[in-house]
């Protein structure tokens, strides 16, 4: 067992850190205030490979692994949670569905532009009435044999990146009677060749949220949206499996996002306690401060190791679902605690928007909710433990 990162990973980590510090950090506060993601930044992330890390060079990707991707997620999330989720949804939800379940032709057509920098992706599973109960999908896709197309009707909510994305993975019922086995996955363009809305697709305004406010997050409605049958990923009925598999991988990215949010907040608090003087000395001189920071760093490290372990299991081609769920469950709880403690250490200033720990605390909350709530993580973990098996 070796806990050291390889040279390749170390150099990537350095590159992601510099990119985050120089390119993301200066924009984070303003993007949060305005609730608009900076598309020049998105283009830069594409340019330097941040949007295609765990994908083969054959399709224009970086040729890295999931551990590389987790390192990137941590570094960008240290300075901006919104950038973390923007990369995550594109990479581990949208692209992974095509990479894992697409045919060679589909990979060339849909995956390549997503990872060579020309398009950005999103993932539409959650519906107003289908959250943790993802099987309760109401969006339908009806096959039209005459045109060899599917006609999609329905609506998705909380679709991250949908405000500017080009490509969406949409899950829809092809057979209502079959329950989860009646759900299929489709690659649905959100824009046509000219960049206008794809016929029948409507993307709402940004949904106002508590945190990750810079990330685009909208409702996407489908009204008689026609997509070629060739856009279906896997067989009819394979959609639920595809979604669950994508979310398993996505959770590693979210766990890494949590580690980043927490480490970023801790770093800010560390700098502050050395400067801030009360009762005649820096507050870092008080043991209560020292012990609090020691606890925070220990928890971050534990979450980081769980995240890296889940990534390594995935990279080894083994069953990573439970490890990913445990990493996300622990890391999201940890991030909320650590960011709250960072605000506490910084007192009134920590509560001000001028200091980034306030944003980190708001950003951290969603990590206990999206890509599977903490309760769903416990379902996954206890299921793998066969707690209820006879």
């Amino acid at each position: 067992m070796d806990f050291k990162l390889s040279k390749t990973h170390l150099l990537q980590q350095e590159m992601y850190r510099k990119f985050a510090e120089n390119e993301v950090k200066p924009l984070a506060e303003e993007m949060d205030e305005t609730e608009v993601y900076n598309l020049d930044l998105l283009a830069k992330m594409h340019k330097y490979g941040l949007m295609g890390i765990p994908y083969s060079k054959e399709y224009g990707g970086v040729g890295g692994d999931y551990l590389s991707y987790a390192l990137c997620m941590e570094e960008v999330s240290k300075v901006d949670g919104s950038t973390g989720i923007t990369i995550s949804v594109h990479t581990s939800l949208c692209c992974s569905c095509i990479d894992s379940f697409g045919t060679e032709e589909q990979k060339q057509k849909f995956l390549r532009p997503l990872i060579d920098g020309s398009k950005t992706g999103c993932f539409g599973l959650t519906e107003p009435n289908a959250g943790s109960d993802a099987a309760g999908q109401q969006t339908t896709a009806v096959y039209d044999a005459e045109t060899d197309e599917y006609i999609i009707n329905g609506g998705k909510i909380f679709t991250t990146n949908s405000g500017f994305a080009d490509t969406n993975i949409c899950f829809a019922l092809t057979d209502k009677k079959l329950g989860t086995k009646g759900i299929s996955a489709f690659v649905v363009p959100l824009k046509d060749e000219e960049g206008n809305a794809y016929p029948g697709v409507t993307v709402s305004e940004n949904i106002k949220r508590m945190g990750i406010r810079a990330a685009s997050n909208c409702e996407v409605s489908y009204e008689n949206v026609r997509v070629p049958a060739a856009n279906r990923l896997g067989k009819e009925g394979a959609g639920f499996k595809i979604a669950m598999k994508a979310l398993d991988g996505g959770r590693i990215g979210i766990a890494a996002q949590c580690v980043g949010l927490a480490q970023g907040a801790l770093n800010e608090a560390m700098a502050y306690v050395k400067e801030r003087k009360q009762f005649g000395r820096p507050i870092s001189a008080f043991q209560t401060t020292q012990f609090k920071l020691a606890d925070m760093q220990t928890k971050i490290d534990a979450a980081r190791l769980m995240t890296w372990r889940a990534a390594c299991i995935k990279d080894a081609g083994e069953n990573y679902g439970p490890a990913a769920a445990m990493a996300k469950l622990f890391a999201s709880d940890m991030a909320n605690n650590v960011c709250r403690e960072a605000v506490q250490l910084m007192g009134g200033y920590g509560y001000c928007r001028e200091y980034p720990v306030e944003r980190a605390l708001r950003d951290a909350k969603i990590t206990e909710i999206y890509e599977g709530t903490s309760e769903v993580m416990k379902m996954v973990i206890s299921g793998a433990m066969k707690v209820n098996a006879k």
Partner: protein
Amino acid sequence: MKIVVCIKQVPDTNEVKLDPKTNRLIRDGVPSIINHDDKAGIEAALQLKERVGGTVTVVCMGPPQADVALREALAMGCDDAYLLSAREFGGSDTCATAIIISSALKKIGYDIVFTGRQAIDGDTAQVGPQIAENLGIPQVSYTEELIDVTDETITVKRQYEDRYHIIEAPLPCLLTAIQELAEPRYMHAGGIIDAYAKDITVWGFEDLKDVINPDHIGLMGSPTKVVTSFGKMPKGAGTKLEVTPEEAVEAIIAKMEERHII
């Protein structure tokens, strides 16, 4: 066009400490980076390649750990890399270093050579010009901008304290880069994977001995003899006088006369 960039790995700090026994920089435990001016040279070389085609070769003399500086250059887009590393090269001053690097360049070949103006650890600004002298090619130091390049010439803007020069030089030639020459790009994430898949050519003394006189390299071959080195000593608190300006003038002049300054 064969473009070669010479880089140096330097400690990433202005707080370098000296070993009191050897009077040399202590590098252990200090993170290392590519020297800033050299990195601008890499970027300029890559932009030149994008303009006129060709290859960019990166060369570094240093210990085996300098490998990571070369990987970084490869990840930025350089095509191949050479590490000049040998016990015999250790302790070389600028003159000996320039002999080693220029000997390697003779073997590698070049149309344009970039070096940084100077390194942040030594600040001598000597190695680039010395390489050019050893190779017998023209040099332009303090290169701020590449204006034009043809098969036979390069036109550049050279920074001066109070002016700049536009200089046309015949190829091959050597340019020493300043940071203003080009803002270095980031490594590409995929470039990092590729960089570690590539082989870096490591040349030791044996590989260069046909073109190097062993008496001219290393600590013993270096004409520079460091007699003593020291860090800045903190000054005392000084004397504070609460007086009128006229009295202050008198007091200062008296002090200067006392110390035989005037």
